[in-house]
């Protein structure tokens, strides 16, 4: 599916984009739009609940490689960040550290990138007071952006690198923010394209293969990228390269990534001296 197909359908039938997404899903596999919406609502509720329960909590992860970042950051008086970014960053750290500690999460789009979209949703709800209904609409649109990427590239780090996980999550989060603040589908596509371009080529290099280093901090940074691209798109800044073409480029980049940089734990920061030493240390005890 191409994103431009959805936007042109939107013009043709003169319905808001989230309705178009539901309709096109129904045409594709016979899903009932009402049920799709209800299930999206359940997923959104789970996201907000998980964010609330874990906000700023210290976690005990299986390997002990991370777990206190959210807690530390939640007690910090930010020097540069504004309220929205700070709140979203604490949330992203909290959720992804809960993931590493075998907590409940929403794999949106994957477990390794589960902090980004929920952090955006929670910040939009708590700071911008966006209504639940409006967030459901925006999550449906974010889902469509993710689906376009999944069908052309992949959402698996093992297949196309971290650009496919964190990159996709960032595109989805920015789409969600723009849609809930403007309902403007053109701007949504620009935000998503700007996000993907910012993370194009990002490699998947988890230390020891565990979803902790660098994944935890990447989630936190990613939500800030999503906030900046969304803000730019909202003011009318455009991505010169259209979203569908950016996605195709991402697929080509994914195919040219060597295996060491696709979740094997063999390349990138996973192959640094410190990483090897760390693994040696924890291997005896816990793996």
């Amino acid at each position, binding site marked *: 599916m191409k994103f431009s197909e959805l936007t042109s359908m939107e013009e043709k039938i003169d319905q808001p984009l989230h309705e178009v*997404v539901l309709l096109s*899903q129904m045409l594709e*596999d016979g*899903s009932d739009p009402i049920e*799709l919406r209800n*299930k*999206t609502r*359940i*997923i959104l509720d*789970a996201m907000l609940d998980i964010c609330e329960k874990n906000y700023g909590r210290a976690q005990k*992860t*299986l*390997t002990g490689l991370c777990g206190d970042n959210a807690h530390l950051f939640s007690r910090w008086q930010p020097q540069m960040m504004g309220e929205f970014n700070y709140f979203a960053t604490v949330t992203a750290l909290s959720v992804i550290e*809960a*993931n*590493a*500690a*075998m*907590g*409940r*999460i*929403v*794999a*949106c*789009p*994957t*477990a*390794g990138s*589960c902090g980004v*979209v929920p952090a955006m949703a929670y910040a939009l709800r708590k700071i911008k007071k966006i209504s639940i209904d409006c967030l459901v609409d925006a*999550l*449906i649109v*974010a*889902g*469509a952006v*993710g*689906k376009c990427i*999944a*069908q052309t590239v992949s*959402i*698996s780090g*093992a297949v196309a690198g971290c650009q496919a996980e964190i990159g996709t999550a960032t595109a*989805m989060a920015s789409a969600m923010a723009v849609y809930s603040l403007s309902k403007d589908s053109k701007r949504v596509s620009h935000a998503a394209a700007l996000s993907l371009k910012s993370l194009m080529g990002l490699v998947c290099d988890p230390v*020891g*293969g*565990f*979803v*902790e280093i660098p994944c935890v901090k990447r989630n936190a940074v990613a939500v800030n990228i999503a906030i900046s691209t969304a803000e730019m798109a909202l003011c009318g800044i455009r991505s010169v390269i259209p979203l569908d073409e950016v996605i195709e480029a991402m697929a080509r980049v994914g195919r040219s990534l060597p295996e060491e940089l696709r979740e094997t734990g063999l390349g990138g920061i996973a192959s640094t001296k410190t990483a090897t030493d760390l693994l040696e240390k*924890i291997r005896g005890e*816990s*793996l």
Partner: protein
Amino acid sequence: MNFLQIIGPVMIGPSSSHTLGAMRISKFVHKMIGEIPKYVEFYMHGSFAKTFKGHGTDRALLAGILGLKYDDERIKDSYSLARKMNLECSFITVDLGNVHPNTVRIKVQTQKGQHEIEGSSVGGGAIRIIKIDNVECELAWEYDTLMILNKDEPGALSKILSRMEANIANLFLKRINLLQATALTIIELDSPPERLDELLELPCVLECYFVPKDDFL
């Protein structure tokens, strides 16, 4: 592809292939035997063998055998839960040969007997059950699945199929015991069978297991 697959599912971390997928394999076993077994052995292969503790794959597998829901926060504590339920378990690392790197063989001892199921977690929570009691198969658990231990005699299969009203999507069959002349028939159906007890009345049917399709979204 449905966009709900992208924005979900709700699960327990840290990784859809190492926790959710693993748990779905053992939950298939739980549903098949319809009880919490007395004893279970997990034979861990490949990446499962190397990193199962650091990924919590062992806890997820145990939680599945106990029949927990995929987003149950007690998955993390499944060892102590298993102890409370009197389930004994052990984890053994093995080389299962030319199979997917995330593969586990599960041996269970129930009131009635023993079963051995092998499954792979192939990514994003998707699974393939590749062997049930020595019968090779390829179940993604996207269908209602019926497993029938039947007498290996002429006409048995057609008798079984004649009692089936639901449309058959896939069928796997193999003789499993030459001496006792038994075979295992695995059938994937488009909808649940309506008359399961009638099937058991057939003289050629010895045992019957039904696993409803898994909606993990």
